[in-house]
């Protein structure tokens, strides 16, 4: 079960906002791309965006990152600004399957795709 609500909830104790930054700034993904993350509490999470895979490394920035919505007709309140205290640096990686047999491919019941592994 996943929530696809476009509205951003306030920064309360039950949610955490993280900035995902790409080392390759020329990457261009669309807003309709799929986003998945595996091992969010691991030192190096794996992130999938569309057909690209990334390996994350946690970073602690100096100070605090403030994330501000771009379009907002009404005035923002103090709680409308999002504060982020850590950052995940993403580096694009290439996934190679361990076994060439089709039985080893990962199959997710929540998606209609037969396999998730692709090579860039």
């Amino acid at each position, binding site marked *: 079960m*996943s929530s696809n609500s476009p509205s951003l909830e306030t920064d309360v104790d039950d949610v955490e906002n993280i900035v995902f930054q790409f080392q390759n700034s020329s990457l261009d993904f669309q807003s309709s791309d799929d986003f998945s993350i595996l091992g969010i509490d691991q030192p190096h999470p794996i992130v999938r965006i569309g057909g690209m895979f990334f390996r994350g490394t946690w970073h602690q920035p100096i100070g605090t990152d403030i994330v501000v919505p*771009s379009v907002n007709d009404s005035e923002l309140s103090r709680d409308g600004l999002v504060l982020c205290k850590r950052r995940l640096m993403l580096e694009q990686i290439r996934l190679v399957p361990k076994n060439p047999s089709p039985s080893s491919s990962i199959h997710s019941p929540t998606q209609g795709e037969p396999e998730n592994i692709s090579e860039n």
Partner: protein
Amino acid sequence: MNSLKISDNEYALIEHPGFANNKDAFFQTLGGVQSIQKACQTSFQNPKQALLELNLRPKDKYHHPVQARVQSRNDLLVTIKKMDNSVQNVSRIRQVFLFRDMADFQYSTQNSPFVQKLDSTLRVLDYNAINKFSIDLTPVQRKHVDMPPPPVFSQTSLPMSYNFLQNPLVGRVRLPNGKTTIVNLKGQCRVWIITTNMGVESVPTCRHSKLGEPSKTIQEVIEALKPLFEKRPVWTRRALLNHLDPSYTHYLKFALPYLSYLWTSGPFRDTYTRFGYDPRKDSNAAAYQALFFKLKLNGKHKGTKTHVFDGKTLFPTNRVYQVCDIVDPTIAPLLKDTQLRSECHRDTGWYRSGRYYKVRDLMREKLFALIEGEMPSEVAVNMILNAEEVEESDRYSNFDEQDNTDLNDTVRGLNTSATDDRINDLMRNLMKRSQEHEGFEDLEEIDDDYDDIFGD
């Protein structure tokens, strides 16, 4: 794996160097929430117009803020539920505000009476309060000048990128004792040859104090050179090379400082002389005087590698000839059947100037002809041979050109009055310095390795 779409929402990111312990005070350092929102909205429409300033003392009106610079980004903002680590929302970050400028100098106006008066009368925008403002025109000392600080102290906002780079030729070398030292890998080895000129009182009798013990190979070369220097105390490098085994060529210049010293000017210029032997005190050294010629050489000339001049064969790179190596049938008798000086002359050595310059002109005539690929002209040779030999006062020359030595002799011949004597002294001084300079230049032309000799 939890998967969801990236939303259409776009955000701007501000990298703030502070911590949000107090949200109100935290946002006030950027001008408040309204200023932040306005700057971020402007960054999406016209990034160059976006203005955001970092002010760590918001209540200080005279604080100099740090300007933010806007850059485009393509990052993500991910909202994660802490309970189950599920992704709640993913949005894009398109602009980022960076504070990379250097902060301006800070100035405190807390103890400034003028600033306090200025704030209480003009800043409050009260019509009645303006009347209380006045400027004291009493002259004051410079160090007591009281006035508000300027808007900006320093116009340098970006730090200097001082890219220090070690000399790329420097490398680390491990010494035999296990320590590591830094040396210039391309630096030239010091040869520590002792140089001397005609003005010294006594010649060197032993090697340079900084010269270490020779290696095994250099010792072999030294042993091969000893009988040569015993038999003939003055040599040119070319002559030594022709008497040595070709495998010693590379080590010759390192072995010579152990046995000999080098003349840098005068009639023995560019010759290596055995320690303790002073050619200025032995008239037999007339046979070892050197003649130096500025030959205009090019790569086309070919010849046998010889230090002997026979009037027909030319080795293009040989510029220095010793008298004993001149076997030309026309020139050699002039050097043998002549009366020598009683003392060694500074410029012409043991030979009288008339004979000396005649021999030099003959050598030059023949060398230049051979360089051009022709045999020397008999008419020119006979003209030089039949010319009168003039001693020290003047000389007759077939050539129009006169070098410094000729001018020196000409000036010396005009010894008619005290004023002329003074002029002659000045001219001789000038010529002497010019010759010295000339000698150093020519040495560098002969061999590039000579640079380290003068580095002593």
